[in-house]
């Protein structure tokens, strides 16, 4: 055993080990199973995700640093790991019929990559060292590059992959350059040691450059304006379940990384990065919503809506208080359910003869499939922030966190943006309920898709009416970061 690593370290990364084992199992099963039985791979994947979730149970109250500060196993990472596993499971359920319709060659590789991306996200959420954060980020990103281009005969899918790859690699370069300056100015790669090393260096221009570079690098990953140009193209071109996973999992993991790097690693620089995120938040909300209004492709519209949501989510980071971080965590969880649900409806509309991602494909859906139309109605209202849905609760917490930290202007802009966003969310509802039916075969709900819609609809309603449990969990998770200490330093 190498020095510094003990057997107990392996115990603490048990969930990650189980997930790695599961991913390899899927890959082996893909080779061993006869071609007509490969549909069962989806269930093997779900089993692996379930086993990983079970392996998280012993660590519900753990708060340790593993392998001399490479990874943190705490409530914060636990919150995100649960989110990733849920999102991955929902994505797998969505993919089953979609892959059949698209005639994808080998589902085994697809599910393997989904599990790899999940593994990368889990490492990102736990990483408190530049090395682990980078490795987690790339495990996720490289899996997504391939997934985005998974439907090889489709040129749009290929283009999406190339665009995502080029801008992803470019943003990695910027992020790493910022990280190299952070390392050079602190002499360590551990974020928690770094935090104390930066105290007293606040005015160093090199450190400010590092902050700007890391903000830009992370901005690419969360698709914040002006680093968002890849998102609409990639979301539109990638296979729909991948788009769903990308817009939820990748965004949540990037926010976890953002919180780790800035809140844990650079609390003394908070005046600088809060200002940068303040500007990014306003730009992102406004540009995202205005661009979404003009879209006729629903996937593209949801891409701009997802950009706008990154702007809302940044409000909690700008506030910088424990309450702000809590609000961001709450909204990430709520956003995941409504976003995955909306993409599940688009997946449902994909049939042999219809692509199903244009606005006109939603015409008259209420008459052909009332349940799917009702689910979409709910997700749209929730994304727009209308009570009694979960989206309202999430936005309420974000805006009140901003007001609590005396960012009144930001909260007002947030509310105005929510009003703009209602226009394009309600437009889908109008198409579904008031327009004539279009041609093509009737959309059919498979049991897997019914399960997905059931879970996401329930979550959107229940979290809107009874959000206390989620609030308490998010609050406890945010407080493991020691945000309270930062707040004291700012005031």
């Amino acid at each position, binding site marked *: 055993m190498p020095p510094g690593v003990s057997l107990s370290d392996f115990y603490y990364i048990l969930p990650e080990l189980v997930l790695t084992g599961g991913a390899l199992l899927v890959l082996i099963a893909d080779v061993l199973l006869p071609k007509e039985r490969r549909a069962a791979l989806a269930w093997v994947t779900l089993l692996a995700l379930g086993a990983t979730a079970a392996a998280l149970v012993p660590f519900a109250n753990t708060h340790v640093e593993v392998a001399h500060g490479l990874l943190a196993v705490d409530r914060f990472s636990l919150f995100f790991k649960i989110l990733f596993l849920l999102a991955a499971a929902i994505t797998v359920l969505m993919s089953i019929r979609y892959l059949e319709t698209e005639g994808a060659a080998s589902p085994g590789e697809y599910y393997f990559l989904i599990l790899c991306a999940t593994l990368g996200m889990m490492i990102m959420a736990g990483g408190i060292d*530049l*090395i682990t954060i*980078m*490795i987690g980020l*790339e495990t996720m990103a*490289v899996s997504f*590059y*391939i997934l985005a*281009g998974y439907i*090889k005969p489709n*040129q*749009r899918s*290929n*283009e*999406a*992959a*190339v*665009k995502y*790859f*080029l801008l992803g*690699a*470019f943003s*990695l*370069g*910027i992020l*790493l*350059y910022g*990280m*190299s*300056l952070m*390392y*050079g100015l602190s*002499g*360590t*790669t551990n974020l928690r040691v770094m935090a104390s090393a930066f105290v007293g260096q606040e005015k160093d221009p090199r450190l400010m450059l590092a902050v700007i570079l890391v903000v830009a690098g992370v901005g690419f990953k969360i698709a914040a304006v002006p680093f968002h*140009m890849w998102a*609409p*193209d990639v979301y*539109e*071109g990638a296979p729909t379940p991948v788009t769903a996973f990308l817009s939820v999992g990748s965004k949540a993991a990037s926010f976890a990384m953002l919180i780790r790097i800035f809140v844990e690693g650079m609390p003394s620089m908070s005046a600088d990065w809060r200002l940068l995120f303040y500007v990014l938040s306003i730009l992102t909300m406004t540009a995202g919503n205005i661009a979404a209004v003009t879209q006729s492709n629903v996937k593209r519209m949801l891409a701009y809506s997802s950009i706008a949501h990154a702007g809302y989510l940044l409000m909690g980071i700008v506030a910088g208080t424990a309450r702000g971080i809590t609000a961001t965590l709450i909204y990430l969880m709520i956003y995941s359910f409504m976003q995955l649900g909306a993409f599940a409806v688009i997946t449902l509309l994909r049939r042999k003869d219809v692509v199903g991602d244009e606005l006109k494909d939603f015409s008259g859906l209420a008459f052909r499939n009332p349940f799917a139309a009702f689910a979409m109605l709910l997700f749209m209202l929730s994304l727009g922030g209308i009570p009694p849905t979960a989206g309202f609760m999430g936005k309420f917490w974000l805006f009140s966190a901003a007001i609590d930290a005396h960012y009144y202007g930001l909260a007002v802009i947030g509310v105005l943006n929510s009003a703009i966003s209602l226009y394009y969310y309600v437009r889908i509802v109008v198409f579904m309920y008031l327009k004539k039916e279009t041609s093509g075969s009737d959309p059919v709900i498979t049991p897997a898709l019914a399960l997905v819609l059931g879970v996401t609809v329930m979550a959107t309603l229940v979290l809107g009416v009874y959000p206390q449990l989620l609030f308490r969990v998010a609050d406890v998770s945010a407080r493991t970061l020691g945000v309270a200490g930062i707040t004291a330093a700012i005031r």
Partner: protein
Amino acid sequence: MVTLNHYLILSAILFAIGTAGVFVRRNLITILLSIEIMLNAVNLTFVAFGRALGSADGQIIVFFVMTVAAAEAAVGLAIVISLFRHKESLNPDSFASLKW
């Protein structure tokens, strides 16, 4: 005498060349190479800082960056080839079935 600042200035220049290449060049392979230059600028910064600080962390992280860069290049080239089969071109401007 070559000091830390010389290395840092060199890596900053390399990084700027790489960034400029990404924006200016109109060939997917050249853009890929420009990104590699950016990553090597990062490596140089890490190594230079590691040597100046007398800590091994800077050298260690470079190994990880190189591995990641290799994995990215492998995947990236594969994606470029599968796109090339659709359209015999490496100019990003010719891929316009999605608005860029």
